[in-house]
């Protein structure tokens, strides 16, 4: 971009830029259930300040195709619990149309392609005009260059964790994203702690006490000698924690 353009942009009455926001997803499985709002109420009361006017995305992905419910009334009820529905994901066609009519934005589901194929044609493909592209603003990884010592805990919130030294026994690494250890991993490494099943753990030498992806873990005893002290990546495939040797040059 030329500098003239930049000046012009600065003087413009508005600017359009991409940003990413973290929102809660309210997974709607049984909107007609008697227990839905009482249980939601209990949940919200646990942390009223946290939930007050929090934007939420309604996830209709698991809704059966046959479900019939009054979406506008449902949204109003959710609002009454101090949550602000701003968008929706997935769901049967009539529900999607009702949601659009209610002013909710269709959100990209961000699920593995495989799942969508299994569900037939992508609902968004049928309605290209409604597809929004959200530019994901880069969230920098947490980089640690010093050894992570016994008793230390490092958490990379909503991002990756990169350690360019060794991780001692009794140390704990946590990341919402991937964990890379360019050294020996002798402590605990828990990737995808907020549930990202696509997160992975990479290390130069796997000597870990515990490795885990999205809560599925393996302890040191169960790490076979094929992988012990080797460069390894750890990941989930079909709900099972797997390990692969990393090819080194």
């Amino acid at each position, binding site marked *: 971009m030329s500098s003239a353009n930049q000046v012009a942009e600065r003087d413009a009455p508005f600017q359009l830029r991409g940003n990413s926001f973290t929102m809660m997803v309210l997974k709607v499985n049984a909107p007609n259930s008697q227990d839905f709002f009482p249980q939601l109420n209990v949940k919200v009361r646990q942390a009223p300040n946290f939930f007050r006017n929090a934007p939420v995305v309604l996830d209709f992905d698991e809704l059966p195709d046959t479900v019939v419910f009054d979406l506008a009334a449902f949204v109003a009820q959710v609002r009454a619990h101090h949550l602000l529905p701003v968008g929706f994901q997935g769901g049967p066609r009539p529900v999607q149309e009702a949601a659009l009519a209610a002013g909710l934005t269709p959100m990209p589901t961000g699920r593995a392609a495989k799942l969508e194929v299994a569900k037939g044609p992508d609902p968004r493909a049928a309605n290209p005009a409604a597809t929004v592209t959200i530019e994901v603003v880069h969230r920098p990884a947490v980089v640690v260059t*010093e050894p992570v010592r*016994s*008793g230390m805990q490092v958490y990379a919130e909503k991002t990756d964790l990169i350690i360019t030294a*060794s991780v*001692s*026994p009794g140390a704990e690494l946590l990341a919402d994203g991937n964990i890379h250890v360019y050294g020996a991993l002798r402590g605990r490494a828990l990737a995808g702690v907020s549930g990202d099943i696509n997160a992975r753990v990479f290390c130069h030498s796997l000597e870990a006490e515990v490795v885990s992806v999205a809560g599925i873990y393996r302890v040191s005893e169960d790490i076979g000698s094929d992988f012990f002290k080797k460069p390894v990546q750890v990941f989930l495939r079909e709900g099972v924690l797997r390990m692969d040797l990393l090819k080194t040059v």
Partner: protein
Amino acid sequence: MSKIIVMTSGKGGVGKTTSSAAFATGLALRGFKTVVIDFDVGLRNLDLVMGCERRVVFDFINVINGEAKLSQALIKDKRIDNLYILPTSQTRDKDALTPAGVERVLNDLSKEFDYILCDSPAGIERGALMSLYFADHAIIVTNPEVSSVRDSDRILGVLASRSRRAEQGLEPVTQQLLLTRYDPERVERGEMLKVDDVLEILAIPLLGVIPESQAVLRASNVGMPVILDEASNAGQAYTDAVGRFLGDEIEHRFVSPQKKGLFSRLLRRSA
């Protein structure tokens, strides 16, 4: 400008007090005015190892509480010029170590001394924290076994997060490893961790390897810092370590097994 050194380990019984006594003596022998402070309130030992237990009247805690002047509590070593001992209280506990009090005493000492050596108690509680909080340099005393290495690793983490230098965002506390009670023959048999194994985990520079030696216990029991036993391996190893600390280039000794045979043993003894 005086330098505050902490001798620490996390684990107990690895040789902190022995090393503190030897190191302080070594620094004084090299001409530096040195004081060694016992932070193990309630489990006072440094005075025994230094052989001054019968001259303790006032102690570190008395000075912190304003019950005695620093000059009254400092004990001058009878053998070495420039060497002083600040013993601690046997009747009080670690709560007597107040941050403000410790800081004041260290500030007063730093006006007079080149080196202030703090002998840390075991653990990571108040006593250990107070002994390392004001440190410029840490000597991590470790035995070649896994539990000691893990505890040392923990203490390195504490130094990196809870020392004054860490809290105030100053240059970090410099760290060196002193590997004590090293028995090259047992290492060879796979019964002890190798120097390299320990260095791999702790990842700090090696200050010295002190061989397992009967001279250490003998010296402790007669109240003489083992560094003064010049004939012993351990004493020589401490002298080397002090030299390295002061910047001398000295090759590491006592890391591989001695040659067998009576003749070579006799030679080594007298060497």
